[in-house]
């Protein structure tokens, strides 16, 4: 394997001839394979997913609970708003002294501003939810 600039150099031959004798195993391979097994076990342990601490789980659950409560509250207020509006409508019709208050569906083009407002509201709500997640 060795390459020499002086193929017939006696010094090269001398150095090669005086190379140390190969070392006997003397249990080295066995000890090394034991160390390899230990290293492999340590690596396998590191690879395993680190368990989540209970306090972290509790905090996540509490945050999720708060978010759920906020959504339920919002839903309840929305339903209450619709019910109150309908009740106001019924009351206004029922209490009008000379039946001058009537219920009439508006023309389709009169719905456009309300649709636009609702669309903006929906986009804003979706944006806020996406930021929260």
């Amino acid at each position, binding site marked *: 394997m060795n*390459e020499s600039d002086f193929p017939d150099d006696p010094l090269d031959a*001398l150095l090669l001839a*005086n190379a140390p004798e*190969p*070392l006997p*195993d003397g249990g080295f391979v066995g000890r*090394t394979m034991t160390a*390899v097994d230990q*290293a492999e076990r340590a690596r396998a342990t590191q690879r395993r997913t680190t368990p989540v601490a209970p306090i972290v789980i509790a905090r996540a659950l509490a945050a999720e609970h708060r978010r759920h409560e906020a959504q339920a509250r919002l839903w309840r207020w929305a339903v209450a708003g619709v019910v109150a509006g309908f009740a106001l409508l019924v009351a206004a019709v029922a209490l009008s002294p000379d039946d001058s208050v009537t219920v009439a569906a508006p023309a389709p083009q009169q719905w456009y501003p309300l649709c636009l407002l609702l669309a903006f509201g929906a986009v804003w709500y979706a944006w806020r939810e996406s930021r929260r997640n």
Partner: protein
Amino acid sequence: MQFDATAHAQAQIAGWLARARQGDRPAFARLVQSHQSRVRLQLRRLTQGDAALADDLAQETFVQAWLHLNDFRGDARLATWLHRIALTRFLQHVRRPQLPLEWNAPEASAADEPGHDPRAAEGLTRDVERALQSLSEIQRLAVVHCFHLDLSHAEAAQVLGLPLGTLKSHLDRAKSRLRELLGAWNPESAT
């Protein structure tokens, strides 16, 4: 015939390597068995003959090799890769970033004394060893890696992290120095 034996050994090592990469520990044990001597010899040289420390570092070398076996691309011989890991482990142990490239002035030794005959009682091997000790560290490592660890110049340069030209330069200077120190040795009478 010798070529056949070398090719057979290389094929065997390639087979063990392929199996070891798939997690076959007995195959890796065969690789350790076939390379332990040269890695331990390299580390004994690096640790100035501290056999216990050399064996510890050699063990760490093989553990590192096992853990990073899939990083071995096969561009070089496995032995070259192992020697490189061993050298890196040694440098980490002594907390040195790299080998010193400067000339270390050798301490005066009996071999330097004028009129010293290397064929005297202590024997030729002892004289060669003493002459090697008088080289600078990098020159000694260049000689050891090229002549004692069966590495080509290119492989030794790769292990030591030196450009090939620099390694050859160190080797030439080392051999000039060795010729001076072993000048009284007569190869004709020794063979």
